[in-house]
């Protein structure tokens, strides 16, 4: 060996066997992206897709969700804490990596970089989206029937609309490739073949989520649901306009 006296005095240090908690923290980061955050993302896409059935159906779904027992605890333990942990630890991972796509322009390496960018974009979007939808304007937890109106008003701004499109796309991409990475790192998809197939499945999932998101957005621009008021009119008249 070249330098016997002090093996690794400079450069990248060797592994610190038996030291630190980064294994637990990193695996928690990985797991939290699937459960509960990924599970919540799916629920959120499905719930919002009720808008395609009209303002009444949308309000009913919001009422169901806001009517769940222990809502503040569900929000805090199931969404806020895991999401913040996943995001902040994610930035920590991002800043410690050294992306090198220009030197090694290969698919996996590109996806490595994209996973960081989509995560960052999704985080900014989610922070803004949570603020506008949950913590400002009409309080939907106590006023579920105003849900359609509130989203529709928000989407009137083309900037907000564009941000929704970007946010939905980034979050879907990040989640779908996150599943691919989870399966590879936890040793579920070990073989080359299984990983190739998982890649395809995740691509389909990403495209499906993006499509659902965009179709849901489009529902708020449908002519028959134009200018939906804060208080929905008596049930029948709205239901009729659906058909």
């Amino acid at each position, binding site marked *: *060996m*070249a*330098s016997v006296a002090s*093996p*690794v*005095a*400079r*450069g*990248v*240090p*060797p*592994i*610190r*066997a*038996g*030291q*630190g908690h*980064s*294994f*637990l923290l*990193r*695996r928690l980061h990985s797991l939290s992206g699937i459960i509960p955050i990924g599970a919540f993302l799916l629920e959120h896409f499905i719930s919002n897709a009720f808008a395609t059935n009209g303002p009444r159906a949308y309000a009913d779904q919001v009422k169901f969700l806001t009517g769940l027992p222990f809502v503040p605890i569900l929000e805090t333990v199931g969404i806020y804490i895991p999401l913040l942990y996943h995001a902040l630890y994610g930035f920590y*991972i991002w800043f*410690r*990596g*050294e*992306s*090198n796509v220009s*030197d*090694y322009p*290969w*698919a*996996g*390496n590109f*996806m*490595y970089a994209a*996973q960081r960018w989509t995560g960052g974009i999704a985080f900014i979007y989610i922070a803004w989206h949570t603020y506008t939808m949950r913590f400002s304007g009409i309080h939907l937890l106590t006023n579920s029937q105003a849900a359609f109106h509130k989203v529709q008003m928000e989407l009137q701004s083309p900037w907000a609309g564009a941000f929704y499109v970007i946010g939905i796309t980034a979050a879907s991409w990040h989640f779908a490739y996150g599943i691919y*990475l989870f399966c*590879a*790192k*936890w*040793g*579920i*998809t*070990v*073989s*080359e073949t299984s*990983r190739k197939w998982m890649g395809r499945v995740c691509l389909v999932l990403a495209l499906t989520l993006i499509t659902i998101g965009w179709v849901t957005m489009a529902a708020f621009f449908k002519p028959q649901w134009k200018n939906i008021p804060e208080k929905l009119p008596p049930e029948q008249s709205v239901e009729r306009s659906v058909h």
Partner: protein
Amino acid sequence: MAKTVILKIKRQESPKAAARWEEFELTWKPGMNVISAMMEIAANPVTRDGKTTTPIAYDSNCLEEVCGSCAMLINGRARMACSALVDKLDQPIRVEPFSKFPIVRDLAVDRSVIFENLKAVKAWVPVDGTYDLGSGLRIYPTEQEEAYPISRCISCCCCMEACPQFNEDTGFVGAATIAQVRLFNQHPTGKALKHERLQALMGDGGIQECGFAQNCVQVCPKDIPLTKAIADTGREVIKQAIKDFFRG
């Protein structure tokens, strides 16, 4: 005029000296590779603009891609210089030392970190003793076929150089060492240290730092299924962690 080959080589006198570039123009010869080009420079160390310089320092040995010594950056990519055929490279050929390892001189870098990592994970079969241990257990051909590709590792460190997660902040162990854990954990006698190897990989800089960019498997000159080894070992490490927690 005879066909020539142009090389741009990054040079550095000592670990702390500033780096500089030198350009060389050589007469083309059939079958030339980057090492043979540098041998010619050593025979006549004159730069393209006629300045006399010193021969280039680099590690090399076997010249047939099995010793792992001559790994360097050629046109920006980690690879073995002996198998880098000049005819297949864009010119001028850019030759640089590995960027993530301390420079000794010119293209020679200190790669001791991989040996420290291999020691930390006990990448060997424990057969040392004061008495005859008898013959080893039988290894079936199916196991052999799994093990052989991983056993080809030449510790060149290309996988580590190309890895976006291998740097001073993360102190990531790198794909090669993880693959060796996979190899020795499969060995019927090597298995004795399986839990120690897996526990070592849970330390800071361990397998968790892998970002699955998959550059390692692309640059590996020995075509080792590194991503497969990482996925496989990833599962074993998690199983070991759960076992350690619940069973103590």
